[in-house]
């Protein structure tokens, strides 16, 4: 059943993104950042983790999950070390993803012509 809900929830998030592009004529960058911010707000309201429990990868794979992870990291660190933790914790959960993007991006740029 988790596969079904992952498909439905993940798909719905993508449908929202597609509507933002096609109907509201947002640029791809605006659409992506809006979804990140929405994920962050939902994370702050503690609504995103229940969605992950319900839909699994359907909620963790879309970019909204990145917004949620930023806020979760910041809040967790803030609890441990106060206000400064908001700054130090923001990339705590997401550091693996961001570091991987930088490192693999660098390696690919060495191997291939990265500019069109």
């Amino acid at each position, binding site marked *: 059943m988790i596969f079904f809900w992952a498909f439905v929830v993940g798909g719905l998030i993508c449908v929202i993104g597609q509507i933002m*592009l*096609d109907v509201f*004529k947002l*640029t*791809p960058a605006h659409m992506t950042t809006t979804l990140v911010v929405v994920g962050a707000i939902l994370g702050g309201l503690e609504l995103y983790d229940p969605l992950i429990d319900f839909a699994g990868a359907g909620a963790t794979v879309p970019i909204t999950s990145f917004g949620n992870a930023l806020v979760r990291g910041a809040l967790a660190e803030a609890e441990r070390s106060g206000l400064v933790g908001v700054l130090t914790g923001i990339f705590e959960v997401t550091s693996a993803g961001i570091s991987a993007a930088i490192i693999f991006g660098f390696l690919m740029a060495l191997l291939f012509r*990265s*500019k*069109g």
Partner: protein
Amino acid sequence: MRQGRTWLFPTRPHIAASAAVGGPMEAQGPLARDFDVLHEDFWLGQDSFEKAEQKLLEEACEKAIEKAGMKKEDIDVFLAGDLLNQIITSNFTARALAVPYLGLFSACATSMEGLALAALLVDAGKAKRVLTGVASHNAASERQYRYPTEYGAQKPPTAQWTVTGAGAAVVVEGHAPGTGVHITAATVGRVVDMGIQDPFNMGAAMAPAAVETIETHFRDLRLAGDHYDLILTGDLARVGHRICVDLLAERGLAIPRDRMADCGLMIYREDQPVFAGGSGAASSGTVFYGHILREMVRGNLRRVLMVATGALLSPVSYQQKESIPCIAHAVAVERVDPA
């Protein structure tokens, strides 16, 4: 000589020769056999797309001069334009040609701006041999007008595919040998802006400009709707072509539907991944200077009205959410059988 807004050329300037150069997508299209040079390499062996575009224009110019039996020194004036900032493709090609040069910009309508002015210069006796050409390169246009090519942004089905290619022609005085195709008239377009802001729906934005120019041309010359064997628009593609045909019918201009076509729809097969069809300065440039002129020489077409359509937007105007002003220039050509 002028009739209404339309220029008439009593000396009937003659297209001595023309040439079309295309890229890999154009080589897979239905008009491949009417290109003079086709490239399998999207880069044309160059290290940037901009240099590739310049090579396209250089080749088209060289080929047209060669087919006219001339040398580049024989050219009195070179008229050219393209879509890149400050028309660098044309400027750099003119550097290599080293003949008097006038740079033009009417976006994708530049092809017929060039041909109309070439005919005017020859008709007025200011030049004997005028070379005119246009070029566009898909990837060079993509990254200037839309998104970086490596970004991979989605496009809606109304978007169009910029033609990779170049077209050029040598226009000479009426009696010289050549293709037998003469330039009889030209209607310079007015800028028409219907308030469309979507650069992924340029066909719809440009269609009213094409209609304005076609209507003016027919009214000025008091022509019947079936005067031309073919009325060809430059790059309206699927969406814009339909709007253009419908608008003309609505205005009561009885042009038979089978005599209206669009270069952007002709240059690619239906199953090629080009969204609504082709666009770019080379859309009308390659189809007219390659396919259409050959069809006229073959005897399949006698009178053609080529209406090149252009969207006069810039990346800055689009980012500042301005609407897209559009223009269409029409040139009438006619094959005269040798007496």
